């Protein structure tokens, strides 16, 4: 059962301006037209209440976009209110284009993650490219210069040609866009599982730096100030993209939906970036916002809503790409690389000059009013007149019933004892697991991204988190994205905690103090009780972990209805986390550095193989059992211990244990260095099944290496922090042996084989031909 929110008390509209007449040629408003716009009967009733009359076709389109899940968060808003959002270092929390935190020395970091899932399922190259474009605009409209991007991706298994096509198209789209704009890609993650067949996830995160005083908000303030459309012209692409993003896909989504996918132009974006930053510094504008999802509609109404003002704009003044566009189309177009700017009255010519320098257009299209209305005219004739606040904030919000699916409970409770014995030879199992695309090197991906442009990248993709320096200071910023959807499927609350914990662990492994979070909640259809259950549980887990780690959530994105023909993706609440290093020269990589270094394990091995990559890869795609338990307090102690070790320059390397377990973490560190692979000599004495100790994915573990001379000091510091630590063995010779002994089995193989398996796995999978749809030019 759904219950509309009760926050609609003061929604009655003052109606001083005349209601618009239906525009000649527009369709009549019927129940079918309303349903086609994705609005429920109840929502339509509310629109009638707000307007006091039947909406025009243009108005219906506007409501449909603003009250879509993508813009209105109607099924997620109440859950999002459970997340911690405040801390002394948070300058801007949720609700703006991006969150902003204080990173010291008068500098602020803007950062946010956003999804572009449905467009990428239909047109992977453009879908992913425009995803990067949109998130970059969210950053520079805050006044910050983008300094890094990350990408969090999910696909079905690469054995399918269709998935290889989607994967390669998305990677190329992410790369081409960021490369051209000149923003380094510093990390991210990718995960392959059949649950993402048909519903790939493309979440892009961006970070930008600014002086604190340059912060600018998306507000339309100052009555009489001029609204200007800036950047690219408006075309017919992407109309109703926001509504499209709020529906399930079906078999025939592919070709028919392509017109709803936008086309990106990174060159224009680069010009828009430079022009926007120059504009913001010039003092000629008071507000700026990306025309993102729901285009001109959302930017204009949200800017008015935030400022508590009104706006009037004339669609006939908007520069268009093609003739004959209706107000409906102009308002809902999602053409890329456009901004809405509020110029100070009388400063329009200055704005135009700055844009002209960057070969772009800026045209006055309307002005700020004080009547609280979102009023649209076409050549002076009113075609829409809606109270702005109810439009942006009056979207009904729902709290639904959440019930766990029986089949998930059964899977979770399944007895996994039979899988604790090795399937075959332990070493062969290990190499197979290491070659899984969820464990193997992502080099095939990140070598298509420019990772070093802007000459600030201190740690490139391939390790635990990306690190950049902050120009002009000793400081650095680290960033990561994490989420294991399998854990979240089996237990959404523990899975979400695990995602936050892993993100924080990844950051501390580079020496960064976890500081704040942006999240991307990717789920199925929230109207289904088992999906709503996943959403609520995941948000509760995330809230608990973020609260304890003091990493507030400063914004993010919700992507629901990720289903194809009724089958939902795994619940995938992606965590994008940023951290700060006071002295970036102290940062540590994940690769072993020198022969003879002492290898230590921080944290405990437990008999946990539920939800593991080992089960999926070696036992026919089995997804079952309890995912690893997360002890948040132990994680917190571990974070502090690792940070103290980095602070004292005691670490030669630090690497988190995640998919593939301890054995794969050791392998990744052994082969991760620039100078070629180093051997490993490790003995484990845990009284656990070798499968569990080698391949189990218990949380809260970090593999470090230290100079043998500082072993005692390191163990002592860990003890003082209440963190269990022990010596596992030593780093071996270059091109030596990879040897891991346990009481009841061992791994033994030349480390060169480990190297080859780790780096060749993904290229070998991708060497098979993709299934490219006819007529696709990008693959």
């Amino acid at each position, binding site marked *: 059962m759904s219950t509309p929110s009760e926050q609609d008390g003061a929604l009655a509209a003052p109606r001083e301006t005349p209601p618009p007449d239906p525009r000649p040629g527009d369709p009549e408003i019927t129940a079918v037209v309303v349903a086609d716009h994705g609005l429920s009967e109840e929502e339509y009733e509310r629109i009638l209440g707000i307007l006091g009359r039947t909406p025009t076709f243009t108005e219906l389109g506007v409501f449909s976009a603003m009250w879509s899940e993508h813009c209105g968060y109607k099924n997620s808003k109440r859950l999002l209110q459970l997340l911690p959002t405040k801390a002394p270092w948070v300058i801007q929390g949720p609700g703006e284009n991006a969150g902003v935190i204080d990173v010291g020395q008068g500098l602020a970091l803007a950062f946010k993650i956003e999804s572009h899932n449905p467009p990428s399922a239909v047109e992977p190259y453009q879908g992913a490219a425009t995803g990067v474009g949109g998130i970059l605009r969210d950053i520079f409209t805050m006044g910050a210069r983008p300094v890094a991007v990350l990408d969090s991706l999910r696909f079905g298994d690469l054995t399918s040609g269709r998935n290889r096509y989607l994967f390669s198209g998305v990677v*190329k789209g992410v*790369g*081409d866009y960021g*490369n*051209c*704009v*000149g923003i380094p890609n510093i990390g991210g993650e990718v995960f392959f599982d059949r649950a993402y067949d048909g519903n790939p996830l493309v979440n892009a995160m961006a970070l930008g730096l600014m002086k604190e005083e340059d912060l600018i908000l998306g507000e339309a303030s100052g009555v009489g100030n001029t609204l200007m459309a800036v950047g690219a012209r408006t075309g017919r692409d992407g109309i109703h993209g926001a509504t499209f993003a709020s529906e399930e896909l079906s078999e025939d989504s592919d070709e028919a939906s392509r017109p709803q996918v936008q086309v990106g*132009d*990174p*060159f*224009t974006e*680069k*010009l828009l970036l430079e022009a926007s930053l120059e504009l913001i510094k010039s003092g000629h504008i008071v507000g700026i916002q990306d025309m993102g999802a729901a285009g001109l509609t959302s930017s204009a109404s949200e800017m008015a809503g935030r400022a508590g003002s009104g706006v009037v704009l004339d669609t006939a003044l908007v520069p268009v790409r093609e003739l004959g566009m209706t107000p409906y189309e102009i308002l809902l177009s999602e053409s890329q690389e456009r901004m809405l700017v509020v110029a100070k009255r009388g400063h329009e010519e200055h704005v135009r000059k700055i844009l002209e320098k*960057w*070969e772009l257009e800026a045209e006055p299209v309307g002005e700020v009013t004080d009547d609280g209305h979102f009023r649209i005219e076409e050549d002076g004739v009113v075609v829409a007149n809606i109270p702005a606040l109810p439009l942006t904030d009056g979207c009904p919000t729902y709290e639904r019933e959440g019930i766990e699916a029986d089949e998930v409970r059964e899977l979770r409770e399944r007895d996994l004892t039979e899988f604790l014995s090795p399937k075959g030879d332990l070493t062969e199992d290990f190499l197979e697991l290491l070659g899984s695309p969820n464990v193997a090197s992502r*080099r095939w991906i*990140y*070598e*298509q*991204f*420019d*990772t*070093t*442009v*802007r*000459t*600030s*990248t*201190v740690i490139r993709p391939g390790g635990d988190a990306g690190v950049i*320096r902050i120009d002009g200071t000793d400081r650095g910023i680290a960033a990561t994205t994490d989420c294991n959807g399998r854990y979240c499927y089996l237990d959404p609350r523990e899975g979400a905690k695990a995602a936050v914990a892993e993100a924080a662990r990844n950051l501390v492994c580079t020496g960064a103090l976890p500081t704040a979070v942006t999240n991307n909640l990717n789920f199925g259809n929230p109207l289904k009780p088992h999906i709503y259950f996943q959403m609520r549980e995941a948000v509760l887990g995330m809230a608990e972990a973020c609260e304890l780690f003091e990493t507030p959530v400063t914004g993010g994105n919700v992507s629901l209805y990720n289903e194809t023909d009724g089958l939902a993706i795994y619940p995938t609440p992606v965590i994008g986390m940023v951290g700060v290093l006071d002295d*970036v*020269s102290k940062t540590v990589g994940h690769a072993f550095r020198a022969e003879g270094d002492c290898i230590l394990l921080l944290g405990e091995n437990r008999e946990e193989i539920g939800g593991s990559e080992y089960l999926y890869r070696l036992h026919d795609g089995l997804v079952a059992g309890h995912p690893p338990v997360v002890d948040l307090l132990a994680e917190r102690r571990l974070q502090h211990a690792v940070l103290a070790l980095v602070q004292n320059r005691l670490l030669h390397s630090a690497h988190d244990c995640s998919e593939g377990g301890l054995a794969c973490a050791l392998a990744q560190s052994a082969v991760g260095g*620039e100078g070629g692979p180093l051997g490993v000599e490790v003995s484990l004495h845990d009284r656990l099944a070798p499968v569990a100790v080698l391949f189990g994915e218990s949380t809260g573990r970090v593999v470090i290496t230290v100079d043998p001379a500082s072993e005692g000091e390191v163990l002592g510091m860990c003890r003082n922090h209440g963190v269990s630590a022990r010596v596992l063995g030593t780093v071996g010779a270059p091109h030596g042996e990879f040897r891991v002994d346990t009481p009841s089995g061992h791994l033994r193989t030349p480390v060169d084989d480990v190297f080859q398996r780790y780096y060749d796995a993904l290229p070998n999978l991708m060497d098979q031909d993709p299934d490219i749809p006819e007529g696709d030019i990008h693959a």
Partner: protein
Amino acid sequence: MKIAVITFPGSNCDHDCYRALKLLDGVTPEFRWHRDTSLGDVAAVILPGGFSYGDYLRAGAIARFSPIMDAVVEFAEAGGPVVGICNGFQVLCEAGLLPGALVRNESLRFQSHPVHIRVETTRTPFTSEYEEGQVLRIPIAHGEGNYHAEPEVLAELEGTDRIVFRYSTADGKLTPEANPNGSAHHIAGIVNEHRNVLGMMPHPERAVEELLGPTDGRGLFQSLRNHLTAGATT
């Protein structure tokens, strides 16, 4: 002395080059905008990497028609040192200041990673600080870096010691695996006949600070500075 860094719309390594030059004693980098028609009193010119004009048509094909390029051509023809890096190399080829062309990488993918390049000649204003045969570790980041030229052009480049850098292994061998983009004769950088115009695909400006990794790119900027200083004092 002043060194100009040209900014085209779409340049994105202009600030990186500026920063690398700034680390040199006695050098003042200055930006020049693509619409400028004069370089001013600069001692050298850098054409930085990026995607000038979105690389529409072909990489570098539109940038050569920028107003500033007339001044750059004039400067180069008068013997002034000019370095084109990545997209800058592509612009120099399109402008006819260097022979040949840079076409799509053999892999058909953008490639971004450190490579090894071997210094083939120190007889240039840009490589005097290196040793012949020295192997450098420098990043590449390009989709169109596959050097092509007519056989007679390649023969001339070879015969006149104008190949400055070649892609190689860490120990200086020219194996197929060491050639990241399919370039003819493993070419990573060349100079013009008068040896004052250098084009190269790898990014030396990304390899000048220890915090960010190897610093093998320093030698190039130091060579240029020394060349200019020597010229100024004689």
